[in-house]
């Protein structure tokens, strides 16, 4: 679809959000509480934090929650009755005010959960999701979207992208049919405009490397000692994977109470030792360095090979969340110049 350009002012935006919530849609946006900004359900525009560069966690939980029922079961004396999840009943969700990198993160996630066998639960959530992103005016030391084919005004993954042009007005890019549906239902709130050069309204972020270079470098350095060096201070927690908008690895767990139980899918991380541990005690990725290497290879070598896309959107959340300053951009830069 060709991008449709519009303008919207802040009061119209407030009305738009009101209309969403009144029509039963669930609106999730960055909300600041106790000093940290996270995606949360909002009712009005006042609840929303427009300033935060990046929420601590990504918006992925809107389509891939940290724990999600994939089926339930009931045991009887000699039988088990399995109940499917009714994913037709998922609510319509609006992701609002997320950054372009968050929106871009839905693409590699979708690539994981689609594939030959489609994960209908994920698919249903994604179909019910409309993404209204806001371009970045600011970036911090951890941002590197421009190095991974993204950018502060990138439209990938967004249904609508807003760019603040004046104190009261946003330049609107309607990117998809879903976005257009919103426009069509609320034409009174939008004003016409010609295409605008967004550059002056966007954060400046220097490109440090390209994904393609990383991808190419990775071909020859699997056995390099750089992995040991880089992973030396990694503590082996899963924070990086859990805050990552593109990490989709999961675990499946049963929980039973009496006769009834639920099978859950919950976030997991390739950084954990038991992720790949065999029952025999053998572990294909025994060392933390191997697990760090897996993380980089998965995003920059395997995913490009399997799904023709990269598994990193440059949001920098992993680096921000890391307790021991494992900065992925720094490490990638190191790899790029090998």
């Amino acid at each position: 679809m060709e991008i449709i350009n519009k303008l919207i002012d802040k009061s119209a935006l407030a009305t738009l959000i009101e209309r969403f919530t009144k029509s039963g849609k669930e609106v999730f946006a960055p909300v600041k509480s106790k000093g940290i900004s996270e995606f949360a359900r909002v009712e009005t525009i006042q609840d929303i934090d427009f300033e935060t560069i990046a929420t601590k966690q990504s918006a992925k939980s809107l389509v891939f929650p940290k724990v999600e029922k994939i089926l339930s079961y009931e045991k009887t004396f000699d039988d088990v009755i399995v109940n499917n999840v009714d994913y037709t009943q998922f609510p319509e969700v609006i992701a609002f005010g997320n950054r372009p990198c968050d929106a871009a993160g839905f693409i590699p996630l979708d690539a994981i959960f689609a594939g030959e066998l489609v994960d209908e639960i994920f698919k249903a959530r994604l179909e019910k999701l409309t993404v209204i992103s806001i371009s970045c005016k600011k970036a911090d030391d951890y941002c590197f979207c421009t190095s991974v084919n993204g950018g502060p005004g990138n439209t990938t993954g967004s249904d609508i992208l807003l760019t603040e042009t004046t104190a009261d007005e946003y330049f609107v890019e309607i990117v998809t049919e879903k976005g257009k549906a919103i426009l069509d239902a609320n034409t009174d709130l939008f004003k016409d405009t010609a295409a605008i050069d967004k550059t002056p309204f966007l954060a400046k972020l220097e490109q440090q490397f390209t994904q393609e270079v990383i991808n190419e470098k990775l071909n020859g350095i699997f056995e390099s000692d750089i992995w040991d060096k880089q992973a030396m201070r990694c503590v082996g927690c899963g924070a990086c994977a859990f805050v990552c908008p593109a990490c989709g690895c999961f675990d499946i767990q049963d929980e039973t109470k009496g006769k009834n139980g639920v099978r859950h899918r919950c976030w997991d991380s390739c950084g954990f030792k038991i992720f790949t541990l065999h029952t025999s005690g053998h572990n294909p990725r025994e060392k933390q360095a191997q697990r760090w290497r897996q993380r980089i290879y998965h995003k920059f070598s395997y995913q490009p090979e399997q799904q023709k896309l990269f598994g990193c959107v440059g949001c920098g959340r992993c680096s921000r969340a890391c307790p021991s300053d494992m900065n992925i951009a720094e490490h990638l830069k190191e790899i790029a110049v090998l």
Partner: protein
Amino acid sequence: MARIGVFICHCGENISATVDCPKVSEVAAKFPGVAFSTDYKYMCSDPGQSLVVNAIKEHKLTGIVVSACSPRMHEPTFRRACAEGGLNPYQCEMANIREHCSWVHEKGDKTDQKAIDIVRMMVEKVKRNNALLPIKVPVTKTALVIGGGVAGIQAALDIANAGHKVIMVERDPSIGGHMSQLSETFPTLDCSQCILTPRMVEVAQNPNIKLYTYAEIESVEGFVGNFNVKIRKKAKSVDETLCNGCGMCTTKCPNKKNPNEFELGMGNRPAIYVPFPQAVPNIPVIDKTQCTYYKNGKCKICEKVCQPKAIRFDQEDEIIEVAVGAIALCTGFDIKKTDFFPEYGYGKYKDIIDGLQFERLASASGPTSGEIRRPSDGQVPKKIVFVACAGSRDPAKGIEYCSKICCMYTAKHAILYKHKVHDGQAYIFYMDIRAAGKNYDEFTRRAIEEDQAQYIRGRVSRIYERDGKLIVVGADTLMNAQTVEIEADMVVLATAGVANKGAEELAQKLHVSYDQHKFFSEAHPKLKPVETNTAGIYLAGACQSPKDIPESVAAASGVAGKIACLFANSELTREPLIAMVDRQAPPMYSSCTGCFLCQPVCPYNAIEREEVKDRNGNLVRELAFINPGLCQGCGTCVAVCKSKSIDIEGYTNLQMYAEVDALLNS
């Protein structure tokens, strides 16, 4: 493929009067994994057991739950039946619906439901039982007897006469203990030393007994059948192999004014001494704290006079390591010094003595050659007051328990006194006369009726001196608590019997439990009176609680019997319900982190450090290892293990979890 059989016992009407047994059986039949369920009037009867055996065979059961009484009662019975049916005996579980249900609840649906829940829990547990094999432990057929009093002597002789080796360790220079200090024994008035000394000599001469006197236990390691004991043989400064016991050294020692412990301070002895003439072994020791040479570097007279040249001033303590299979603890008791009763003036007035001192005064070998003479001036006391329960049965000030022997020995003292001082009068303050025992009551009656001992039921409140007389003030509760005042020449306090000094330390070395009075604890007050909680360590005599001679001897023979049983086989079999540390094939080896925080909690000292080495012999890990010989399966280590690396066989985490899960999520 769990195929569990459930057997609901009516226990006559014990269970069935309250619990609807057929209903429980019916419900249990529908539990997942239950292949057979039935109820019967007496499951423990022969036909009941046959029912179990046949059901196992017929229904190809993989485990059984006998829902009846406490496992304490009949678990062994049904384990046997289980084995008879061809299953591992540990595939049997008891669901206690008697003590835990029918006996404590009224008839009703809720009670039935509880019985059902108990059965369900055990069904879930037994599904997860593992087949277990009894543990075999080799046995070193040598016993260690700690303490050479009458109990130790008896135990040692009985074990030795059963054909086993015995190592006896005595702290003092001679064996004999308190009995060797006594004059006569109640109720027969036999001369104590006359009956004891032959037994002491027998110990010395028995080829199966190795005697270490003037020695103490340094450390004990290992477990039943396999203890390694270090004995500290204190330097006697005399070469035992050379000394011929001539006594020249003790006669010639110039330093003779040392208080004599054997006489409880009522006499003196030289710095090199034999504690008493009949001592076994008859070998002197030098008291280094008193010897002039050790103090000043000069003297050595004993060395000069010793013909066999047996004096060794440079002798050092020796550590002897021995391997033993069982330990008899016979360390005896002590009597409380009465200085915590200042109102009785002990210590202040020389003529207030304790019972043991009176024994020495009455003994023909004592400091007065058996004449009753008071310590202060050697006069024969004409009026003597005995105070029973001096410290015993006194929770407010002394100790709450009854010292048991005082009533009898006080009666004996009164009789002996009357026999020796015909015109003397003995008064006895008492609380009750406790004379239960063969011929005991007759004995106390004899003191009252034949020997005119005047018993006054009441307590002494104060003793003080007036005009050279000891004024004993007490109340006579049989005379309306009238105040009684007796002018006495001498007072004997029957002070409380207490744990021997060093008992606590020794208990800790041996890992046996002890009570708040530091007396060693038996494993079961009724059914295991001579066993301790540590397998292979037994108790005899007054180290357990105050005991008289026949009781001590009986317990000692009991211990000897236990040890002889233990030594009857070259291997001993133990229940395999013990803790195990998780072990896995490399590269994991174990989930144990080697923090050893489990070590201090183990009451049996069963947790050891195991080094895991790789093929090249390099240390890979340190892991906890639970010694199967020592572990009693109490489970304390399981509770403190953070990484859940310890499991108790028969009570694994998985089994316990399944039980709780079955209960909560039914």
